Every structure is written in structure tokens, then in C-alpha cells.
């Protein structure tokens, strides 16, 4: 069993087609809708978690693309707004992966290594100026 989170963007002419229903049926997948919305210009936006056999998930994603749906992996994007960050360091001992870390023990500069971040969001609320942002 595998799971994959994806971001789907449906063009206007496709939003009333039963694409997701076929995806699920034909590939024997189950799913979680994490987010769904229709933009003002009638495009569909959906964040979906697909659960099933790994090869079927990949086939399903290929099917979506053939239908004209734009598919991207969900990388929840944690960013530090350096303009807001006070360089206190409160996040450093909270972050489980040391993605937030003290870069230089002389100046005590706090830095962020995106590659190490697992988007657990533990750092978001403890940051006093709320300088750490979640982008989807």
C-alpha cells in the first residue's frame, strides 16, 4: 500500500467531468480530499491524497494528465519570512530535523535548510513574530 499527495488543477472545461470518479474506480484507489476549490475563473483546484498500489497510483496520475489535468506533487512549502524573523533562535530547539539551525555559533545567526524540512509545522506557532509560513 502506498500513498501520495498531489495537487490537481482542472481546466475550466473539465470541472464537470467525472474524472476523479474514474481515477478511483479504474485504478482501485481510495482517496482523501485535503482541499478543493473552484477559482473565480472557473478552474478547479484540488489537493488529493491517493492510497493504493504504487504502480496503480502512477498509472492513475498518468490518466489524469491525459485528461488535461495539471498534476503536481504536494510539497508543502515552509518558508521563513526573513523580514519578520527577529533571529531569536526559539525555533532551533523545536525543529526535529535541524532544518532550522544556528549557522554560525559566533554570530548566532539562524538559518533554514529547506531540504531538511519535513513540513511538520511544529515551529509555526512557537515563533514569536510568526515569521515561519506554510505555503501550499
Amino acid at each position, binding site marked *: 500500500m502506498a500513498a501520495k499527495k498531489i495537487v490537481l488543477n482542472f481546466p475550466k472545461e473539465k470541472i464537470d467531468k467525472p474524472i476523479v470518479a474514474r481515477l478511483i474506480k479504474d485504478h482501485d484507489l481510495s482517496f482523501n480530499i485535503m482541499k478543493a476549490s473552484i477559482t473565480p475563473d472557473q478552474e478547479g483546484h484540488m489537493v488529493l491524497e491517493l492510497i493504493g498500489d504504487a504502480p496503480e497510483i502512477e498509472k492513475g496520475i498518468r490518466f489524469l494528465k491525459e485528461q488535461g489535468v495539471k498534476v503536481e506533487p504536494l510539497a508543502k512549502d515552509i518558508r521563513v519570512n526573513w523580514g519578520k524573523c*527577529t*533571529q*531569536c*533562535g*526559539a*525555533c*532551533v*530547539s*523545536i525543529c526535529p530535523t535541524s532544518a532550522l539551525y*544556528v549557522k554560525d*555559533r559566533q*554570530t*548566532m*545567526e*539562524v538559518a533554514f535548510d529547506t531540504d531538511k524540512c519535513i513540513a511538520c509545522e511544529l515551529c509555526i*506557532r*512557537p515563533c*514569536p*513574530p*510568526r515569521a515561519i509560513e506554510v505555503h501550499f
Partner: protein
Amino acid sequence: MAKTIAEINEKIKKGQAVVVTAEEIIEIVAKKGVAAAAKEVDVVTTGTFGPMCSSGAYFNFGHTKPKIKAGGGTASLNGVPAYTGWAAVDLYLGATALPADDPRNKIHPGEFAYGGGHVIEELLAGKDVRLQIEAYGTDCYPRKHLDSWISLKDLNEAVLFNTRNAYQNYNVAVNLSGKTIYTYLGTLKPNLGNANYCSAGQLSPLLNDPFLKTIGIGTRIWLGGGVGYVAWQGTQFNPHAPRLDNGVPKRPAQTLAVIGDLKGMSPKWIKGVSFVGYGPTLNVGIGVPIPLLNEEIAKHVAVRDEDIQCAVVDYSEAYPQGKPDVLGEVNYAQLKSGEIEVKGKKVPTSGISSYKNARIIAEELKEQIKKGDFLLTEKVADLPTGADSPKFKPLNERPTKEGN
């Protein structure tokens, strides 16, 4: 060979003063010795930038037509209540004040997204702030309601007045309990999951002049990017905290009450922040220049992180219950290494006060003095540092019949 502040100011005016930061002086004293350093260097600059809860600002927003008297009524700025117990159009806004409709810790830990500190930062950023007043009306001040936008430049006076800042040393907070706790020293993970400290250590103003020989009432300081003054001793001022041989107190000790024109300050250095589960507060930047008048003062400013010890305190039990228990002592070099040992366990550390920004403040003040833009002042009076000064004591609670 002693110097006077007047002599140092003459050198500053001529652009000849030798000014270094509290970090740079360490090296100079180590290389050349205290005597040579005291002779060569005129001023050492310090800095600190951290959350300082006992902060706030007062404003005079000018009379309305017809006139209103806020005193005795209620007032708010962007929904955050301000203190009105003054005359007609003066208000004080405290950094930790919260809007009436903030859910606080109803769902623990509360978010506390916006409070007094944030309003002060927004005013500094030049934003419009909504002022609302409900008054009872008098013959001379008939108006009962006011709802108006104001901005910093419209105010007659806007004065930052903080009653307790620049703590000389502070606790290291840890959590011995089994669940996460949310404190003014940040989020503390269970079972000694982390240790948070809050001082600029070797750069911190009062740790560089432990007996306040040069800092007193009237001392001009760098405050929030502008100019401020030491107004008084800060509240909870405690010169009697136990000290190390170098004079540095090992526990939270002396503090400063500071005052300065908000209009000259910057939102970069006066910043609203908020601790989840605790509340909003204000990050304040302070830099204090220390004139090297003699060798004794030179010896003190050479203090290093490893020479400053502080206490590790359990914030799940000892601190909230007012118990004096201490889990151990560590120094700032250990704290800044990223890990300390508490009860035999290695615990990762976090600063709450920004060392990086403390450095920038000390550097900025240094440049201002070098350029002749910042002159030193003679203190007008000493702060009560003597052995006979009052002790900082807890409340002697005398329960009333009605409330118990």
C-alpha cells in the same frame, strides 16, 4: 589613569574617540591587559534585543471638537484596550494588552496573534490605527464617543516608557513534566526536551557594568533605533542576587526603566511578538554605551560568555509555584554551543533574545558614537545598588474575608 565623561565627549566630538563593542573589548583586554585597554579605549557599546513584557507607550492624541475626556472611560487602539486613568486625551498602551474578544487560552494553547506590542509596531510602521473611546461626558468635556483613525505623525507625544527592561541575567527555562508547556520563555518540550535562555550574555548591557558604576538615571541609551534615557531603576530591581567573583549576578538581578521618543524609533527594533499559550509582548532593542573611565570598569566590560553563569529552572513546577529550586548552573558559552547538560541529560538550547541582533545594535551604537552623532551623559543619580537598598520580595498575601 582615569578619564572623565566630559573628556570622552570632547574626543567623540572631534571624531577621535576609540569605540569598540563589548565583544571586541574581550580580545583587546586579553591581548593588552586591563590597564592598556582602559587607557586606549574610550567607550564600549553593548546591545540586547529580546521580548520585554513590561513595556508600553503613552500618547497624547490631541483634543477633539467638541472635547472628550477619556479618563474614567474606556479606550482601545485597533481593539486593544489602552489605559485611560489619566486626563482627557492621554493614553497608555501596554505591550501585553489583548483585545477584549481574544479567546486567550480558552483552547489551550492560545494563539495570541495580536496585542499591544503589535499596535505599537504598526504605529511605528506609519500605519493607521483605529482609536475608539467611550467617555461619560462632562460640562467641560461633553463628547461621549470617538472613533477615528490616528497615525504616529498625528500624535502630539508618543513616548515609549518601559518599566522593566534589560534584565541583568535571566533563568534558563526547562520542562521536567511529561507534557509540552507554553511559557514566556517559549514552548518547552516535555522531559527536558529543550532549554530556552534569554540574555545577550557578554553583550548584554547590565552584565558589562554589574555594579552600575556608569549607568544611572539620565544615562542616554540607544533605544529601539532612536534615542532614549534611563528613567529609573526597573521594577523587580534586585542588586542582592548572588554574584560570582567577577561581580556578575548569577540570577535575574537589576533592571532598567527606560524612556524615549517613539517617533524617533524603528519598527525593526520595536517589534510586536507573541508567545503561544502565553500572550503578546514587545521585542525591544537597547544599546547602552559604557565609558571606560578606569581600570575597574575596563575589567568588567571584558566579561565573556563563559564568565557568566545562570540558573536552570523548571517551568512546569518550580517557577509557577514560586519555589526557589534550581536544577543547576550553566554559563552562556555552554548555552550558545547549542546543548547543555541537565540532570545528566543532554538538552538542546534555544535563545529567546537575539544575539545576532544584539551584535548589530552594539555595532550601530559604536558607529554613531564614532561619527559624533551620539554623546555620552553623566548620570544624574545612582540606581539603588547598595547593600542597604530594598530587597525584592514576593507578595505578603493577606486574604480578605470577601474574596475567599
